[in-house]
């Protein structure tokens, strides 16, 4: 303390020191503490001064510190006293002390150093050394270190155990001395490489101290020091177990592989990422891909369309639930039906599948067939070779009334053939069936309720592969309706064939399909002659009524039932009257399929009708004649008779010789003459009427007859100054009765004279027109007074009709003209105009 430094300088030294300088009194109370106290103990010197050290000391160190303090007091100084204080913040601080007792001051001077970090480092080093030793020493792997000469410098316990030598024996010896001789060159080579700075690794098989052969994985690591390899560190890892289990595993894998390859199912595995991890050869074959080419690929990349499809769903189910799945599905990609079994595995799933497209097809076919067999409207019966029923379908029950329970075990014939007749009918057929040939037949069966039912039956034998008859399949078709219809048709056709009426069946177009015997009898046309033709083409002719044909045509078009009568012609050309009934036949849709025409020859009836009509007409005309006679009698006869009666009465009342008598007698005579005239008229009319139809006609020169009539009227003509222009050719002849013809012209000419016009001289013109082989027209015109055609109406040719009140006349002339002409087949027409004249037009037939 007597050096060059003053106390002030010492204070500075103390202030900058990281160590805490402090002073205690004899009892151990702080009397000084440097500023470092704040850092080391957390307390400032002010807080410490006056306080006892033990207040801050760690309790564990109280005893030791007290002893150390005593020792300082005795020996005046002490170094490296270590204890622990509690920092103001509560942490433990290790402190190393140096103390000096100064008797004269009664003060202990101390320097305290914080050694907490130092102590911690010391402790860590110790631990790490222990750890390293444990790691090296107790490592189960064999560890040793060689120097660059190859001499062993350090070994661990495992080394000693494996090689069966002690640590001491191994030290400073080359490894070659305890390695099997065959391994030495290899080890030397690797050691050389390691010494050149390479890390090497190799396998080494050794026989250990306890006689086991073990395999080691050897790694040699060069340890460099100062840029040079100083040591080589070697680890021998016993991999015997690992290698053995690997070998075992690969053997098992190989075995499994061959199992998977040998199974006929396709097999593949998927990991949880949907990647193929394995596919067997059948899989590759079905998918038609290179062997194992899909392994490692994602199934949904291979089959993108399969996402969310049935396969996806099922695989996913197996993967998620860990349950196996068995299903069938159709693969669109492969166009195959697959049957799949999916098993969850650790990695994902394993899938076995088979292509059962063919089975599926057969199954579907069978399903379809069985559907057909079950649901067809035909009855289906399957029997064993003994004809005992094994199976029947629903339609069998519907058709026969027998349930499957009632039917199975029985023979079909026992159920269905209850009547002797059907049993007999079946006997012959069953012979054929027993022979094992397919048989078809129609048979009358009986339902359970006794109703008759007609079946069309087909029996087909079924043979197995060995050619043995194993069952019969019988198919029944209900043909009751058909048979009834046929029977009805047979009956109808019997009627149609044998009736006397003609029956014609035509198609919808009216072309003949069939005719019966009656038709042939009536018309003379046979079926081959008329088939395919319209009946009308052959039967209708000139006399056939157009309106009747029209009616037929319209009715056929409308498709309504109708009747008509018309004239037809037989093949011989003979005309006949036919009554026809035509009925259209419709199909279920209402379309006409045929027409049926029934024809009756009604000529006889028609003729009877005609003769009746003629008779009626005759009677009518007789009746009208009679009416005319009545008229004549009542008027023309009545007048002269009444006159005569009056006169005779007068004659009886007056004297014979009176002038009145003669007059009366003369009048009476006149009346009788009149009476006679009327009677003559009647006689003449009757004679013409009676001669009608059997009048003899002969060729007559017309001009001559006209001249004869004119000559009879010559006197009258001369008196009235009339002229006649007779333009009839000399050679014109007509077929007529001469007397009648004369009467016609006489009457017409005398009328012309009688009704001539007072205003002009009578001119008569007689002309001929249209002279032909058929007939001739004769006109006879005058320029007389004429008459009003409107007033005359149709009466001018009627008996006792008169149109000129100022002229004498009986009204019989024109009646006679018309009657005579008509009796000869002629005709007369008249035209007249008042004040102009009259024209008669006469037609006379020539043939």
């Amino acid at each position, binding site marked *: 303390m007597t050096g060059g430094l003053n106390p002030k300088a010492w204070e500075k030294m103390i202030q900058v020191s990281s160590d805490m300088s402090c002073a205690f009194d004899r009892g151990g109370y702080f009397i000084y503490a440097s500023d470092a106290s704040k850092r080391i103990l957390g307390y400032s010197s002010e807080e410490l001064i006056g306080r006892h050290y033990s207040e801050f000391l760690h309790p564990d160190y109280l005893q030791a510190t007290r002893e150390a303090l005593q020792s300082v007091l005795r020996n005046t100084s002490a170094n490296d006293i270590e204890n622990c204080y509690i920092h103001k913040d509560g942490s433990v601080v290790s402190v190393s002390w140096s103390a000096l007792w100064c008797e004269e001051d009664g003060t202990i001077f101390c320097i305290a150093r914080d050694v907490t970090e130092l102590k911690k480092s010391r402790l860590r080093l110790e631990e790490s050394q222990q750890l390293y030793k444990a790691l090296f020493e107790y490592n189960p792997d064999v560890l040793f270190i060689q120097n660059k000469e190859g001499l062993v410098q350090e070994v661990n316990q495992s080394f000693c155990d494996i090689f069966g030598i002690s640590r001491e024996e191994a030290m400073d010896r080359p490894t070659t001395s305890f390695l099997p001789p065959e391994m030495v060159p290899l080890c030397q080579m690797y050691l050389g490489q390691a010494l050149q700075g390479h890390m090497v690794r190799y396998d080494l098989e050794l026989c250990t101290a306890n006689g086991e052969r073990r395999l080691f994985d050897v790694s040699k690591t060069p340890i460099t020091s100062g840029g040079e390899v100083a040591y080589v560190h070697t680890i021998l890892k016993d991999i015997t177990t690992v290698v053995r289990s690997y070998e075992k595993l690969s053997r098992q894998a190989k075995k499994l592989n061959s199992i998977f390859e040998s199974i006929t199912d396709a097999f593949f595995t998927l990991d949880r990422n949907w990647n193929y991890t394995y596919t067997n050869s059948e899989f590759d074959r079905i998918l038609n891909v290179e062997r194992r080419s899909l392994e490692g690929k994602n199934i949904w990349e291979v089959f993108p369309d399969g996402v969310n499809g049935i396969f996806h769903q099922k695989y996913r189910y197996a993967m998620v639930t860990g349950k196996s799945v068995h299903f069938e599905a159709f693969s669109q990609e492969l166009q195959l039906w697959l049957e799949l079994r999916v098993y969850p595995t650790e990695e994902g799933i394993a899938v076995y599948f088979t292509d059962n497209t063919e089975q599926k097809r057969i199954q579907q076919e069978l399903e379809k067939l069985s559907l057909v067999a079950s649901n067809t409207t035909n009855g289906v019966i399957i029997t064993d070779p003994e004809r005992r029923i094994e199976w029947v379908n629903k339609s069998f029950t519907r058709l026969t009334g027998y349930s499957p329970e009632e039917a199975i075990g029985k023979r079909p014939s026992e159920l269905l053939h209850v009547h002797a007749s059907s049993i007999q009918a079946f006997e012959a057929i069953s012979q054929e069936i027993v022979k094992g040939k397919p048989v078809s037949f129609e048979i009358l069966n009986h339902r359970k309720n006794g109703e008759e039912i007609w079946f069309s039956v087909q029996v087909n034998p079924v043979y197995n592969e060995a050619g043995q008859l194993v069952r019969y399949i019988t198919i029944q078709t209900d043909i009751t309706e058909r048979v009834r219809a046929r029977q009805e048709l047979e009956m109808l056709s019997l009627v149609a064939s044998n009736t006397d009426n003609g029956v014609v069946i035509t198609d919808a177009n009216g072309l003949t399909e069939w005719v019966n015997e009656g038709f042939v009898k009536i018309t003379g046309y046979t079926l081959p002659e008329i088939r395919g033709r319209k009946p009308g083409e052959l039967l209708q002719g000139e006399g056939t009524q*157009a309106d009747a044909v029209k009616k037929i045509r319209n009715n056929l078009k409308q498709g309504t039932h109708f009747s008509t009568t018309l004239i037809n012609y037989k093949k011989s050309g003979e005309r006949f009257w036919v009554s026809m009934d035509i009925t259209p036949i419709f199909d279920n849709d209402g379309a006409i399929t045929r027409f049926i025409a029934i024809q009756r020859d009604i000529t006889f009836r028609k003729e009877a009708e005609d003769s009746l009509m003629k008779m009626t007409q005759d009677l009518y005309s007789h009746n009208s004649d009679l009416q005319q006679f009545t008229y004549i009698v009542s008027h023309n006869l009545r007048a002269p008779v009444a006159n005569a009666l009056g006169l005779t009465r007068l004659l009886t009342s007056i004297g014979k010789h009176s002038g009145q008598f003669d007059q009366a007698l003369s009048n009476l005579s006149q009346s009788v003459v009149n009476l006679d005239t009327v009677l003559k008229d009647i006689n003449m009319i009757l004679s013409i009427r009676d001669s009608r139809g059997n009048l003899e006609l002969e060729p007559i020169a017309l001009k001559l007859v006209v001249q004869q009539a004119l000559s009879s009227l010559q006197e009258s003509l001369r008196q009235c100054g009339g002229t006649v222009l007779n333009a009839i050719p000399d050679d014109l002849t007509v077929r007529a009765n001469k007397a009648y013809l004369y009467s016609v012209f006489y009457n017409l000419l005398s009328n012309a004279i009688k009704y001539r016009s007072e205003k002009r001289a009578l001119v008569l013109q007689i*002309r001929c*027109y*249209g*002279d*032909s*082989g*058929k*007939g*001739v*027209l004769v*006109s006879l*015109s005058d320029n007389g007074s004429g008459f009003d*055609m*409107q007033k005359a109406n149709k009466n001018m040719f009627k008996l006792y009709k008169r149109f000129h009140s100022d002229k004498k006349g009986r009204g019989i002339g024109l009646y006679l003209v018309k009657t005579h002409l008509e009796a000869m087949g002629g*005709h007369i*027409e*008249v*035209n007249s105009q008042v004040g*102009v004249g009259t*024209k008669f*037009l006469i*037609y006379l037939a020539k043939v």
Partner: protein
Amino acid sequence: MENTLGSPGAREKEEERLAKLYGYNITANYEKAGTFQHVVGMAAHIFKAPIAFVNFVDERSTWITDSWGMQGITELDRGVTLCSHAILRDGVTVFEDAKEEPCLLSNPFVHGDFGLQFYAGAPIRTPEGFNIGIVGIGDTRPRKFSREEEKTLEGLAAIVMEELEERRERLNQDSSRQG
């Protein structure tokens, strides 16, 4: 049947024909039916025809003065009548089955409701040789018509012509007497 109405010569001839027709003063009095009733009645009777008629063909129409079986019809458009064809010929025009005639395919008389199938018409021929009208018969069904029958029909036409001539002569005499 050739239609000669179109050529210039035919046009003049037609005008002359019409002049002749009007000269007989028929069309003005056509409504006085009955003038040729006897001819029509005779035709119907002789040929047993359901239809018989006397008519005259002017520029546009066919005037039916008298008919049998066509009651109420007095005037027809010239275009539709078969008579307008018939006057173009000097002989008798006969359609035994008019439905089969190609030149009548569009004729409403033949193919319409009337259903005329047989037609025979003789021209009413003036002394100068103009056909002014027709005396004809008809039927609703086809029939044969012989040359002999044609002559008879022509005879009826001649009667009509003669009566027209007589009437004209008489009217001329009357007017000259009055004049």
